[in-house]
């Protein structure tokens, strides 16, 4: 990568995500993946003569919500335009999109990258319709229009990204936000996220932009990363060998791992945008926008930072509660009842989650109250029970829902920290195991652990382990 140290990349991304709506953008057909070809279609999404589009309000709502999650301004007025070009997968041969009056503008995404928080500015987020899917057979081609008219959100970033890895991190952060906000399921396998990339390179430290090259046809985030890695190298080698780059569009071939030129600037489409006369401008009321604003959720990064700050959790634990939001929400209920949230987090993550997986239970099936975990943590922290007993208590409370103290009382698990009682157990153990005692005295330190185990066994696990060690050593050495 030595060549890239003299050059830097300037990258902007256009990310398309399918919105999670029940019906399509302009008609009542189901927005559903995987149905047999051309079964979710009607005169409107097939573009039959005489039909008209009617905007799906839920799609407009999700678009504005996405805009708010991306810290965008929501303009008072948005409009739909027609983007005119011929393609067999496009029923009307124009795509309805928001051209110069999008639903969201000027936002940003913050995300963790290489140990720091990075910010990529969002130029705009606008609503448009998806097209059908072309299929090529031996002799013929076909088009499946199930996808035609599915609401699609296009998120355009500023060229703030400087490497393939950073693009990858940005895309993952964006995806997390959209999944978090319920905007899209972002299922890559189902083609719910697609991405176009604009990339140019320039000598490091200069400010003039190089020729912008657009890459299309990446169908995964790792594909985007690979395409960028390839393309940045390619552009740098061209420049280094004295060549020139021209503004153009290239196609990524995932099989061979290279980009190929599709068209240069002079063959660029003239899309003849104009306002769609079939649709009225969208002018949401203040009340409407405020109602959407109420659905703005905490973003993954903010949540992670808050969990680390407020509960003093390590990054790994906080991440678990970002990745599994309901579990994190449950943890917050627990954390309110304990001075030791980290201890509580261990129980939630290591014990409760494991048992839930084992028994196939969900959070709603949990029989004990969240504060019970706080109680258990306190019992351990106050030395009332040993951590070994605590495991037994947790298993019991998971099974029955009984409170930890009740279980401890019922089973007599209160830790024995009374020196006289512990000494009695130690004496018993020493008397019963002359062999190990001799070993220890002969210098085999490991024998002490065996004797400790015997004491714990005699006390049915209740003896305070620290005290046991202390007393045994004293007796054997003394």
């Amino acid at each position, binding site marked *: 990568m030595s060549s890239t140290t003299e050059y830097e990349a300037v990258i902007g991304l256009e990310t398309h995500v399918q919105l999670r709506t029940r019906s399509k953008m302009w008609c009542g057909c189901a927005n559903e993946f995987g149905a047999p070809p051309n079964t979710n279609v009607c005169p409107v999404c*097939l573009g039959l*003569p*005489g039909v*008209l589009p*009617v*905007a799906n309000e839920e799609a407009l709502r999700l678009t504005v919500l996405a805009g708010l999650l991306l810290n965008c301004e929501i303009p008072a007025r948005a409009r739909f335009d*027609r983007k005119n070009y011929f393609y067999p997968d496009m029923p009307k*041969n124009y795509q309805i999109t928001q051209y110069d009056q999008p639903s969201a503008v000027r936002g940003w995404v913050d995300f963790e990258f290489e140990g720091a928080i990075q910010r990529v500015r969002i130029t705009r987020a606008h609503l448009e319709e998806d097209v059908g899917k072309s299929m090529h057979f031996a002799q013929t081609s076909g088009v499946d229009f199930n996808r035609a008219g599915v609401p699609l959100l296009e998120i355009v970033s500023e060229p703030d990204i400087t490497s393939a890895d950073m693009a990858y991190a940005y895309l993952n952060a964006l995806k997390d936000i959209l999944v978090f906000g319920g905007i899209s399921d972002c299922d890559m396998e189902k083609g719910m996220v697609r991405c176009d990339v604009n990339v140019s390179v320039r000598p490091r430290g200069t400010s003039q932009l190089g020729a912008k090259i657009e890459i299309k046809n990446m169908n995964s985030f790792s594909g985007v990363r690979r395409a960028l890695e390839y393309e940045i190298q390619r552009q740098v080698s061209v420049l280094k060998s004295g060549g020139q780059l021209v503004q153009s569009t290239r196609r990524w071939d995932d099989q061979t791992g290279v980009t190929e030129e599709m068209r240069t600037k002079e063959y660029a489409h*003239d899309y003849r945008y*104009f306002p769609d006369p079939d649709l009225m401008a969208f002018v949401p009321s203040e009340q409407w926008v405020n109602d959407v604003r109420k659905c703005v959720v905490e973003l993954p990064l903010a949540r992670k930072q808050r969990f680390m700050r407020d509960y003093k959790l390590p990054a790994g634990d906080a991440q678990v509660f970002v990745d599994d939001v309901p579990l994190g929400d449950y943890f917050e209920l627990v954390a309110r009842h304990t001075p030791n949230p980290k201890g509580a987090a261990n129980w939630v993550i290591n014990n409760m989650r494991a048992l839930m997986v084992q028994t196939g239970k969900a959070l709603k099936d949990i029989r004990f109250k969240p504060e019970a975990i706080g109680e258990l943590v306190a019992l351990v922290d106050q030395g009332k029970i040993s951590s070994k007993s605590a495991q037994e208590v947790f298993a019991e409370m998971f099974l029955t829902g009984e409170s930890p103290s009740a279980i401890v009382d019922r089973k007599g698990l209160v830790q024995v920290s009374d020196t006289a009682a512990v000494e009695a157990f130690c004496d018993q153990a020493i008397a019963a195991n002359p062999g190990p005692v001799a070993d220890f005295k002969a210098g085999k330190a490991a024998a002490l652990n065996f004797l400790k185990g015997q004491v714990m066994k005699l006390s049915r696990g209740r003896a305070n382990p620290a005290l046991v060690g202390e007393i045994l050593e004293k007796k054997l050495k003394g």
Partner: protein
Amino acid sequence: MLDQLTVTGLSSLLARGETSSREITQTFLQRIEQIEPLIHAFISWDAADALRQADHADKLRATGASQADKPLLGIPIALKDIIAVRGHPLTCGSRILANFVSPYDSTVAEKLKTAGAVLFGRLNLDEFAMGSSTENSAFGPTRNPWALDRVPGGSSGGAAAAVAAGECPAALGSDTGGSIRQPAAFCGVVGLKPTYGRVSRYGLVAYASSLDQIGPITATVTDAALLLEVISGYDPRDSTSVQEPVPRYLDALREDVKGIRIGLPREYMTGILHPEVRKAIVNAMTVLEQLGAHLVEVSLPHTEYAIATYYLIAPAEASSNLARYDGVRYGLRVDGPDPVAMYSATRGAGFGPEVKRRIMLGTYALSSGYYEAYYLRAQKVRTLIRQDFLRAFELVDAMLTPVSPTPPFMLGEKSGNPLDMYLSDIFTLSCNLAGICGISVPCGFTTAPRLPIGIQFLGRPFGEETILRIAYAYEQATSWHKERPIVPCVGPDISQPGIPGTKLA
């Protein structure tokens, strides 16, 4: 003579049990058989289907249905072949959709069906409603029933000719720049272009979406009011339809126009007006004054830009609206080695010259680098034209204008000169650009030959009641609407001029 009766007249006969829907429908079908070879108002009709609907209407009546809940029960209504009816052809007068059958109903078709109408026949038109003479139909021109060597106007020429010739009691047309009012004037019948948003466009194949509007073509003002009431109203399937209550338009009809202020746009009484048209309009003014209306001169200063504005906006929208006819999913396909070649071959063979001309005009007007100078500028002028009207309507309740500068012209007279044809729409275009309503009513005839002349009343947005009232008062005070053309009857076996209508099964 059932075929000489109006919708209202037929309805009272039906209500009194003096005839049946089957008998009425049969009569019109017979009339069509007799004179279609001369007029060619229809592209197609399905007699068996029409009679089935008529029998159904008769059955409903026998079980208690009546005009009260179904105002068009048993009345045959024909539709311009650009309005979708499920199971009926939808050719738009174009080769590219010559074999297309609509799988769905337009909203107006649904409303007519609910009102009990018998939907029969597909009326001829200029291809995709682009034209003023019906000569641009891929299925051959329609002839004016008053003079078979003359055009019926357009683009709803088939609808106006059919009503004038007694082939159907009423019809629906569409009006983008005068396509209902001008043929109505040329054929001596009534044509109403409602306010933009008054009638749902769902199922009206789009020519210029921001200008198109469906409206009735009828023999009388009363029938126009009746049909308008049936087809009007907000439609959740058309975002541009307006949530404005539908008045009882029949109740608006009164013979009295005392105190109504009618504007005379100064810019409209220009030198291009044919002397006999001018005379008829001036006579009509006198009639209205005698009826008590106040005539006031008003000004619409941006009138001179209307044609240029229209011929930028309408083709721009058309170029996009007609992009879907590509041979991929339906309609004509002419194969080619790749999709682009297939598009070119299909559209080259499927569209006629006027449609191609407008697609090219519109594509040019929207092109990058020209958009601001043409389309955007035209939209701004359009706003000024609308403001002209709204300002004038602060002074007057309605306006009176000619419909067309000339009486019906000869077939072929203007078809070689598109610009001349475009200019003949001068008095009707502004109404669409402004989004207001207008009605055309017969107001006289030229002397030799005897050709109908129409007068236009323009109203405020949603001011249909006012223009219907004026039109009705004028109609009742005159007898022009009572005259019908005499069409020589021919047997179906006589050699037919032009391309005959395709008779289906």
